[in-house]
């Protein structure tokens, strides 16, 4: 419940205050969001399966976001940024679907 409230509060704050993304971070924000979504789905799955640990969740959240951004950053530096970001999105998308399937099974037996 509280996490959901946190999400809503974040959306509202984003809408009301309308903060702008710092220019150098702009290319990495989308990939960071996808990584964060992956971490959130993973955390929800772990929670539903009874092995949720807030420490692991925080660490995995932060490291996922940072690694995704780092991969894209390095890709940009060596000239394959768009390809690498596509790769990151594909991998994270597969993981999100896997986690979503586990969540679905845990909740609906199907």
């Amino acid at each position, binding site marked *: 419940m509280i996490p959901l409230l946190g999400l809503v509060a*974040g959306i509202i704050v984003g809408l009301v205050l309308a903060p702008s993304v710092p220019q150098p971070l702009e290319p990495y924000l989308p990939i960071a969001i996808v990584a964060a979504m992956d971490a959130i789905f993973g955390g929800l799955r772990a929670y539903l399966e009874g092995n949720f640990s807030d420490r692991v969740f925080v660490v995995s959240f932060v490291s996922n976001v940072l690694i995704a951004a780092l991969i894209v950053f390095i890709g940009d530096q060596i000239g394959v940024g768009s390809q690498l970001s596509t790769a990151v999105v594909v991998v994270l998308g597969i993981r999100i679907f896997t986690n979503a399937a586990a969540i679905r099974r845990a909740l609906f037996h199907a």
Partner: protein
Amino acid sequence: MPEPDDPRAGPGAPRRAIVEEAEPVTTSTPASDGRRRLLSSLVKPGKGQLIAAAMLFLVGMGAVMQIRANTADSAYANARREDLIVLLDGLGEQSQRLEGEISDMEQTKSDLASGADTQRVAREEAQQRVDDLSILAGTAPAIGPGIRMRISDPGHKMTYDVLLDAVEEMRDAGAEVIEVNDSVRVVASTWFGRNGEGLVVDGKAVEAPYVVEVIGDPHSLEEAARFRGGIVSEITGPRIGGQVQIEQLDRVVVDSLHAQTKNQYAQPASPQPTPR
């Protein structure tokens, strides 16, 4: 549960995948567990939920920022530098190509315009020549400043050579069109002769008083006629005893025409120059 870890922990993920494959067998317990945990999280929140809430807060804010940036900015604001360079290159190439096309077309246009222009100028020049030549040949009426010379010959002593002298003097003074008695146009082939008592010009009998109308510079023409020993002195002299009246006119109309006959033998030696 064998996995103590979050699904993103490196070794955990593959094992979990295997578990998922096997899940239908053991599905009843974790599923009811999951629902129970979800319900219990709703009624008694813990510390972990606060942390998750903070994370989700960040994610929600970031997502909104990104969506806003995506919708507010143009499509190129978030593009990568390499993509922008490729785009710019493409646009530069395209504009170069189009500029080349423009210059080609302008070249064509100026070519066509100058072609039309030279053709028009040539046609105008040709028309000008036709006008000049038709006046010279006597096939077109003419108008302009000039003089009218009226020669009275009470003693009928005028001879055709005196008339020819008069015409020659006028030509010397720059006469462009000469007409005798308002009926005979004097051209290159005009001849003067005698027919019994009267004079004949180009086969037409002319009678005194002879009126010679000349288009040219009026002053020069009159001077040419009146100079000492000239045509006026000759006519008014004792041999003929005639009288000459000369009036300068701003407007002399010559509308008698010379009927041109087609050359039977002579032909241009070189092909006619094309009007260019």
